């Protein structure tokens, strides 16, 4: 479970890094990447949680 916590933290940090990169390079379209990553990391985290809760 500690590895799952680290994975979730890495996803959160990636979203914030993408936010800052989009602002730093002045590319508003890159904000969509951060938004998509935030949604997908949440969905992926829930799937991992369900797997670890039941089967592994």
């Amino acid at each position: 479970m500690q590895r799952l916590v680290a994975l979730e933290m890495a996803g959160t940090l990636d979203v914030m890094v993408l936010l800052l990169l989009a602002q730093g390079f002045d590319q508003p379209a890159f904000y969509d990447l951060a938004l998509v990553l935030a949604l997908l990391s949440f969905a992926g985290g829930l799937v991992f949680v369900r797997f670890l809760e039941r089967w592994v």
Partner: protein
Amino acid sequence: MTIQEIGVAALLFAGVGIALVCCVGIWVMPDTYDQLHFAGPATTVAPVAITGAVILEESLSQAGVKAVLVAVVMGVTGPALTHATGRAARIREHGHFAALPEEMPAEAAPADPPAR
């Protein structure tokens, strides 16, 4: 250096600092539940600070609105994922999510049957 730049720098340092403290906390804490206490602020407080910095810089342009959207999504999904992770950790540890008898408060525990 204008007031706006000072505000942007302060919010940026706050957001990155909170994320750094949360990373160190997850690294140092030995238990999954203790680590989850540090995963919470990283998904709620740090994105709000960084989004505030972006809004101060860009005002509510397209970039600012998208940054607000990202912060809202993270603020909603982060605590839910943290709770789900804690629940899964407890189910893996005890086999169920319900409270153990020794975790119940004293007044809620069933009284001992009277001795005959």
